[in-house]
């Protein structure tokens, strides 16, 4: 296999859960340690990775300079045969860049995880410690990015995410990609066929028993319990809740005002209908 395997999603759509599952599969279905083993699916937006690829301190670079070198970082690690990677970038060329952070010629295959944007909004509110109004506005902002250092060192470099709709379309509509679409909701309600599909798509060597054990070892309750006991390094400083908070479907019905729910449905109507989140 040549090229990178990407696990891509808008933030808080189930990416970390998928990484935990894959880490468990790699361990024959044993429970992974969420603070060490999730690095099986690494992130090329992590500063250490970027710095190693460019032999420069990315924290001394401007956002524009970082945008221009992301594709180089991807090519560097593709050449080294890097395993699966977690990605929040849109499959779009960021402002100031010349090509997407993951150029199509270095991508071998992509698992794209999608989740009802109304639940994404609630989850992002807790994760980023922002107001729900801010989050809903960001989800409609075509220029939205994460990892932009402000007052302190961000352990991730800037990633161009764009709006929720553009993010989804950028990954789903690129006909050059070998891509598997996974719904977060199916991971929760129909885990066996959903995760089995992922394992087969990635060409991993795991039988049904390993897959079943990995699913139960990385159930929401298991991950939340581990976080409660030993913390989770990937939780953001500004977060106001555990990383593994609820993981439910339709939690937005209690948490989103009718006005904000309607705003999301208006902003993202076309893509929500396409994915079956709206009639």
């Amino acid at each position: 296999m040549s090229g990178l395997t990407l696990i891509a999603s808008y933030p808080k759509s189930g990416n970390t859960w998928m990484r935990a599952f894959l880490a468990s599969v790699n361990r024959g279905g044993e429970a992974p340690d969420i603070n060490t083993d999730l690095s099986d699916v690494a992130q090329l937006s992590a500063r250490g990775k970027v710095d190693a690829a460019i032999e420069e301190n990315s924290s001394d670079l401007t956002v524009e300079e970082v945008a221009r070198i992301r594709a180089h970082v991807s090519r560097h690690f593709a050449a080294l045969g890097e395993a699966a990677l977690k990605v929040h970038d849109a499959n779009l060329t960021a402002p100031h860049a010349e090509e997407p952070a993951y150029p199509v010629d270095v991508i071998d295959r992509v698992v794209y995880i999608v989740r009802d944007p109304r639940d994404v909004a609630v989850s992002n509110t807790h994760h980023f410690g922002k107001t729900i109004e801010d989050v809903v506005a960001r989800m409609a902002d075509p220029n939205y990015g994460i990892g932009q250092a402000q007052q302190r060192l961000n352990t991730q470099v800037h990633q161009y995410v764009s709006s929720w709709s553009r993010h989804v379309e950028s990954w789903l509509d690129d006909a050059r990609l070998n891509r598997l679409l996974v719904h977060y909701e199916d991971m929760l309600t129909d885990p066996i066929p959903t995760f089995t599909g992922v394992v087969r798509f990635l060409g991993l060597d795991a039988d049904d028993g390993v897959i079943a054990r990995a699913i139960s070892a990385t159930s929401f309750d298991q991950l939340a319990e581990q976080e409660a006991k030993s913390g989770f390094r990937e939780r953001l400083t500004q977060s106001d809740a555990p990383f593994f908070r609820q993981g439910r479907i339709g939690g937005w019905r209690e948490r989103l005002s009718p006005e904000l729910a309607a705003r999301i449905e208006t902003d993202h109507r076309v893509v929500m209908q396409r994915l079956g989140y709206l009639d």
Partner: protein
Amino acid sequence: MTDGYLCGWRVRSELDLPELAPWTGPDIAPDVVFRFGETPTELDDVIERTPFVQVSRDGTCLLIHPGVASYHMTGPDEVVLSVNPEASEAEVRLFLLGSVLGYLCHRRGLFPFHASCVSINGKAVAFSGPSGAGKSTTAVSLAKRGHPLLADDITAIDATGSGTPIIYPAFPRLKLWQDSLSSVGIDSEGLERNRPGMSKFHYRHHEEFAAAATPLAAIFMLQKAAPGLDEQITRLERPVEIISTISSEVFRPRVGQAMGRRPALLAAQARIASTVPVYRLVRPFDLKAIDTWLQQVEGIVGQ
């Protein structure tokens, strides 16, 4: 014009370098000269390349930061700079005293270690680890506790002798983000910005800087704990683990290897591993209790 001390070398620089301590050693010819001049855009016979640096087979290096400056290390004793007039002075010095200093260390036979370094009772103590682990914050906090600062991002080690490896101090300047400055009670007002618009500042702490070779007494590999967990300091015992840990934090390793330094780097790592205690310091997620674990560090080094 600066006539200064940098990693044991006498440096004469046409670019003012307020970071450096003045040269107070014997009146020798400069070891390294930084001068303004024309720089090429492309080197011949390039054997290593990133978006910023080219290394030629003959060991010369060219670092280009288009908005800032080009730095042409023509040999072990000269760097030619061509500065973008739009650039701030701080950012021109930033890459010269960053990546280019790393190239000079490789070229001149020092081991550049990605670490900050302070002197505790005359013994050099290095703090290494990935970006965000807290190297500079740890160093500035120890400086605040009265320990002279020896280096920030690059600790230059001479591990070629038969005894304890020696640190050649770089300069007493730290790059610190606003939150780190706030945590140690330093006002960022009046400090130079690392890059224009960036909330990362250059803090100079010239008090007690000792431009003198200092034995390396300990290395702490920093790691940030998950929120809510206490600090944990463990000494690494297995040589394989120690060497791989040190090797992961060589500064600009590919440039060094392109210069043919791989055997020397391996030898330096082996010597450090066999003579210097290496600890893993998992530090708490937030910095509120930093003095607690700094006292432990002082205790360990003082033994």
